[in-house]
């Protein structure tokens, strides 16, 4: 019996992401168990998954990693937060256990060691794309206001990327407003920013705070474009900012509108589990993390299987096989660089369109970009293609 482990934040302040990830992994299991597998000597050995709560702190993630590694997991999926990855991944690396991160976007994660990889593209690749779209719509933009949560690792890293991208276009922010992770009242920073008449607002905060920030920006009279970061990449923001969400721009590593067989299968499974909402990026990435491991294991089985090998040898061979393959996933085609960094070919810029009642909405694809996410290349040249339905009316 082959066992995979998953360490997901089911408690603590990252649990909103963890719930999405748990769903994504469960859907991937359904998909994998449901498809016809080629006959191999080992195909009788089922692939099981043990899921542990990694909490939202470092110590719990370390404990969960140790638990699953000692329980004989062939490879691990997780942990949810980059800060947790910096604590727990070195343990897996030292013991030679492959790790696939479904949602770590900080710089330096695959560099922890050769057993560490991720399917979540770095924010440096994704974030600037939405900025490009905003400037394409209004090339006269000169005055940009930036908001970010300074005590949140993700937002603080992302705003640096945004500000670099602005600098590359010769735009200096007229103001940079710092907020806190737990803030929900943004009257003061918004008032300070609006006095400077910004034409574009760029936001890097987490979901709940972001929903409130957007709503308050609009209520206080801001009418310009809003570009948001990945923290707001979840339909969970709609109930918070309601009709005020309409029109915000976001770059995504996943689009539900991608029309490929694997994404259609993923959407079907998701529809059954959660008919209310389309899948979020984080669900799709968790699905992908399980998928790449399952496919690598299947290939190994076809080559003669893992039978007769020690757990250590099996883990090492799996890592090699994982990095060597290329995968057709709901995120589009992906493969890995030798150091474990994901190379993803397609990204998307979406615009939130809310229904007139202000309760429901969706991320509408406005642009489909294909570029190789190779962080070694400082300025990837995107070949952009406006999506048919995304053209501005």
């Amino acid at each position, binding site marked *: 019996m082959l*066992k995979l482990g998953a360490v997901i934040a*089911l*408690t603590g302040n990252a649990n909103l992401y963890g719930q999405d990830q*748990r769903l994504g*992994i*469960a859907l991937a*299991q*359904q998909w994998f168990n449901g498809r016809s597998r080629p006959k191999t000597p080992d195909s009788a050995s089922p692939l*099981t*998954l*043990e*899921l*542990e*709560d990694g909490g939202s*702190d*470092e*110590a*719990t993630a*370390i*404990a969960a990693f*140790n*638990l699953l590694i*000692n*329980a*004989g997991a062939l490879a691990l999926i997780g942990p949810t937060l*980059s*800060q947790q990855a*910096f*604590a*727990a991944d*070195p*343990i897996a690396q*030292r013991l030679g256990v492959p790790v696939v991160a479904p949602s770590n976007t*900080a710089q*330096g994660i695959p560099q*922890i060691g050769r057993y560490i990889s991720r399917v979540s593209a770095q924010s440096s690749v994704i974030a600037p794309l939405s900025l490009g779209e905003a400037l394409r719509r209004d090339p006269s933009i000169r005055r940009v206001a930036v908001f970010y949560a*300074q*005590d*949140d*690792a*993700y*937002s*603080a*890293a992302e705003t640096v990327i945004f500000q670099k991208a602005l600098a590359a276009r010769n735009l200096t922010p007229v103001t940079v407003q710092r907020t806190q992770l737990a803030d929900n009242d943004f009257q003061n920073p918004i008032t300070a920013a609006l006095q400077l008449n910004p034409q574009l607002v760029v936001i890097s905060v987490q979901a709940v705070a972001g929903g409130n920030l957007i709503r308050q920006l609009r209520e206080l009279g801001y009418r310009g474009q809003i570009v948001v970061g990945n923290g707001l990449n979840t339909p969970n923001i709609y109930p918070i900012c309601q009709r005020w969400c309409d029109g915000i721009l976001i770059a995504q590593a996943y689009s539900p509108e991608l029309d490929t067989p694997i994404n259609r299968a993923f959407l079907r499974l998701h529809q059954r*589990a959660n008919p209310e909402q389309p899948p979020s990026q984080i669900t799709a990435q968790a699905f992908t993390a399980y998928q790449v491991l399952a496919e690598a294991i299947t290939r190994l089985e076809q080559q003669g299987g893992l039978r007769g090998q020690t757990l250590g040898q099996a883990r090492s061979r799996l890592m090699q096989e994982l990095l060597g393959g290329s995968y057709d996933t709901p995120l589009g085609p992906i493969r890995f660089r030798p150091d474990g960094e994901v190379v993803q070919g397609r990204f998307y810029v979406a615009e939130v369109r809310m229904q007139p009642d202000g309760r429901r909405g969706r991320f509408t694809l406005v642009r489909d970009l294909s570029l190789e996410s190779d962080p070694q290349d400082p300025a990837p040249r995107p070949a952009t293609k406006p999506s048919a339905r995304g053209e501005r009316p």
Partner: protein
Amino acid sequence: MERHAAERHAPVSRWGCTNVIDNGLLVQMLIGALLGVSVYLPLAAGQLSLATPAFYAVGGTLAALLSTRWAALGAGADGSFPLPSFLLELLLAGALAGLLALLVGRLVLRLQGIYLAIATIALVEIVRVAILNLPFTGGAIGIFAIPQPFATASGYLVPALALLALAGWGCQRLEGMPLGRAMAAIRDDELAARCMGIDTTATRLSAFVLSAVLAGSTGALAAHFLNTWNARQGSFDASITTLAFVILGGSRSWLGPVVGGLLLTALPELLRPVGDVRLVLFGLVILLGPVFFPRGLITPGLLERIGGRRQEAPR
């Protein structure tokens, strides 16, 4: 749903086939116990100080900075770290935290009771915001790739146990020393102690500094153990958690916070087999502990009964 089936696919018996408490968890438990003793020390002198996480954060940040930025300490390219440098860090972290406590304590210890508690919470917050904003502490992501003096988590057992043994020995010795007796006198009645000629300010400050030294060294150990360090390590939440160690364990003997720290750190991990409700159960334990053990698990009476050892009545 499918995931339930998957979760149930765990090996025959999780309790049977793998160690419930692995060495990594044991180190975390020892760190909990050390922090418990650090909260206990000012409390033994009647001071409700919640500043332990601030000194823990200072110690951890110092160790993280020194080991990743200061090449003279000998961090290897393969992530290894010489043991003497690690011990030096424990000392330096303790010294820096102690120095900070000496400076801050003079101001803060003029306050008493709930006001002191609030002032120390403010200290924790100031240190957290400082670490978040200083240009060299890595901001919200913090400092990562901290080199390792030991190949596995088991290696940390020795220094953690040694530090706890040292702390325990110190606390035990303190009970018979003038400083310890003065602390006990202040805890029972500060006014009476002052009338007896005890220098209450110096005694309270000593307890505060000792607590900070211990928390600082523990932070340095934890920074290496956790592989990474950031501002979230020393937060208000940690103040409350460490206070819970003392309340559940008992504040009349140093063994109380040790037992409380060990238990409360291990419990969420031991409760994993019950699934999603484990933190609910954990909360119940914290809630019901003081109801059934109002003076904590370890009381002087209990110690007398099990050890038959002579304990002087507190009053």
